[in-house]
């Protein structure tokens, strides 16, 4: 069964450092998302991506964040200068339809120290 894969599963970084979280969405999907979850609580939307551009973003997704689809398979989230409060579980998701169910990866646990 096709699935969304994320790497690494756990990333520890020092405050102020840049991190790149990687995702491989399901191959025939066109809509891509990043969400984050702090301490197993609410799942917060960060950004959506379609047709090689951001289609929507939340207030959380400030200038420190960027997304990229560098090739036909990968979808990355970059945090330029990490802060302690960026520590969270980051989930990538993809969907084949704009209104379809999103399929989630296993997440990357980001710890900023």
């Amino acid at each position: 069964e096709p699935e969304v894969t994320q790497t690494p599963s756990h990333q520890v970084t020092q405050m102020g450092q840049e991190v790149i979280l990687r995702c491989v969405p399901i191959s025939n999907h066109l809509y891509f998302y990043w969400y984050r979850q702090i301490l197993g609580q609410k799942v917060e939307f960060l950004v959506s991506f379609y047709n090689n551009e951001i289609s929507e973003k939340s207030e959380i997704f400030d200038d420190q964040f960027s997304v990229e689809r560098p090739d036909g398979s990968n979808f990355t989230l970059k945090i330029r200068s990490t802060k302690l409060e960026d520590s969270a579980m980051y989930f990538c998701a993809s969907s084949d339809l704009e209104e379809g169910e999103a399929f989630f990866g296993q997440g990357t646990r980001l710890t900023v120290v």
Partner: protein
Amino acid sequence: AQSVAQPEDQVNVAEGNPLTVKCTYSVSGNPYLFWYVQYPNRGLQFLLKYITGDNLVKGSYGFEAEFNKSQTSFHLKKPSALVSDSALYFCAVIKIGGTGGSYIPTFGRGTSLIVHP
């Protein structure tokens, strides 16, 4: 704007008993509604969805949900709970059509389901 409310942080039920996890939504138009389950240290796993048609939707692992437009609810149910159902459950909504909504899934805060042996 669209939103989802899950009024219970935690639901406790004995194994073999029926379970209900509540969800209410707020959108100005027609909603698409989803339930996801999250096991510890895992991603969200799709359970079921309501788009249109029959108000009772059946999904994975014996779960079902009932769409009630008048009460703007989409409660998750299962006739007989298993200990292995213990997990975090999230309701989500997408607004279809009209203005002021978004195709981006908006999630509730989650409900922890604990099934006791």
